[in-house]
């Protein structure tokens, strides 16, 4: 997936679009991640100042949510559902297989809502049902 290179100026322009939102901190962090692929640590004081919050407030939100990351992602992102319905379809062994192959890119997820067609994975934003290592490799290419 393509992201813009991190830039404070670009971040400020984006934050301005949230000026009138109520409770904007999480939205702001999500917006940063969407644009730059991750939340650069410089975002913390930037967002805090912009919305008149403390750095602790922003840091607290940033570290609470599983989705938010503070380091740039790799070229590919693979997410494997390891919740119960997919476990019943062998998600744990799929997880092992995929991690053995693409360790750095894999994160666990709890449910994509595709529980009748498990195991399920998401590769670079694309949902894969009845997932196998082979299907994941193809989607990644």
């Amino acid at each position, binding site marked *: 997936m393509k992201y813009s290179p991190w830039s404070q100026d670009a971040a400020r322009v984006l934050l301005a679009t949230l000026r009138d939102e*109520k*409770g*904007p*901190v*999480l*939205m*702001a*962090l*999500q917006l940063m991640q969407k644009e730059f692929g991750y939340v650069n640590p410089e975002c913390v004081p930037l967002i805090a100042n912009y919305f008149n919050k403390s750095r602790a*407030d922003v840091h*607290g*939100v940033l570290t*609470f*949510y*599983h*989705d*938010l990351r503070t380091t740039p992602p790799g070229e590919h992102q693979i997410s494997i*559902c390891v*919740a*119960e*319905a*997919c*476990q*019943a*379809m062998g998600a744990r062994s799929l997880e092992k297989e995929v991690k053995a192959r693409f360790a750095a890119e894999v994160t666990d*997820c*709890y*449910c*994509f*809502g*595709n*529980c*009748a*067609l*498990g195991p*399920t994975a*998401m590769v670079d*934003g694309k*949902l*894969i*049902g*009845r997932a196998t290592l082979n299907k994941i490799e193809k989607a990644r290419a």
Partner: protein
Amino acid sequence: MRVFVPGDSAAISIGADDIAARIAQIDPSLTIVRNGSRGALWLETLVEVEINGTRFAYGPVTVEDVPSLFDADFLNGGSHPLARGKTDEIEWLSSQERITFARVGIIDPLSLEEYGQHGGLVGLRNALNSTSESIINEVTESGLRGRGGAGFPAGIKWKTVAQTTSDQKYICCNADEGDSGTFADRMLIEGDPFTLIEGMTIAGIAVGATEGIVYLRSEYPYAISILQKAIELAREFGWLGTSVLGSTHAFDIQIRVGAGSYVCGEETAMLESIEGKRGIVRAKPPLPAIEGLFGQPTVINNVLTLSTVPMVLAQGAAAYKAHGVGRSLGTQVFQLGGNIARGGIVEKAFGVTLKELLETYGGGTLSKKPLRAVQIGGPLGAYFSTEQLETSMDYESLIAAGGMLGHGGVVVFDDSVDLAVQAKFAMEFCAIESCGKCTPCRIGSTRGAETIDLIIQGVRVDENKKLLLDLCEVMTDGSLCAMGGLTPMPVKSAMVNFPSDFLGAAK
């Protein structure tokens, strides 16, 4: 000529986009409608052809099958190994009682015209010609209870909010469908988003709220995009905005996207998250109905609850409560998932038995191995054994059987499952997802996982089982919300219903 290829993300996950593209490539003159899924996910990708107003089904179709469909003249209903006949006559579908899901899979999700042709907006128009009190009475009278899991009567919640005096009230739709094994909220939003918008608008009119917020999980990118488009279309149509369908009521909806936290499905954690904060559970009281989002009175309902309201207002409370049993009135959208041959959406009146769901609809396990355990109601729900298949699927019967309905998810496991491992996972999941506010949940979950691990390893098994049950009691009684309070449910039910998995080394 219209050909239907579902745009539901489950169908897309097994190739529906490629199928739609291939069909369009072979015959560019066809109109391809990306409908929602009919709910028979085992038949996906279910391709339908409309011939003189009747739809014929072919499924499960893969992209490789497409040329052979053309060879078989499927556009004229030609015979093919994947032909399923008239869609309306597929028994798996025709034997259901579709109320909330009446339009899902049938209409183009983003066509307001089709929405209207299939009974859409009737409920809202009735509401606009009615008083707040009579709307709330109708909802109360229908017996509609919260479909998120708690089962609280929707009408009573609305009444509480309506009785508050505040300049700003909110309608919050909880679409943070995090339970494994549940996907009805997602399928409804992807397949019939206007129903949800209509339900929220009615709720707004009933309680005097002008702002609606849908808290939708980030794991559902397709649903987010479809709902966003539907909201924009409703604004252009003069439905959402300063004057709802030309009336004096104002109502608009905004989507707030979640960020991968399970506990944010708990209503007060959800409010915190919408306010942009950490998803930490609030103590109650105050009830969100009195002091909710940004401190204002707030209706919080699940997607299915709100999406059932238009039908109640269109056809009346009596029509709705004609379905169901006891205090579980109406229909429930059951979701069959996991290791199941025929998974998907089964909307039936409350009171259908677990056996009927698993056998008549589910068709047993997909692996063809014997079915061993069924988890009902998500990660916090109980594990049932095959001896409990006669259980009636309604709020009260499931509680009596030591479980809960939750959001209606039914997850099937074959005989390769180890319930001690599942019990340990329940504790681990709680440890990962706990908001950390209360001690029984934050620490109990980690201690619970460790204790189950000792049992699995055969270390002082009897002693540790006793300790585990004691811990479960503390978590049940001492946790602030359902996360810690219900995590013991899968653990204890696994111990009670599958004792042979908790014998440690003796197993």
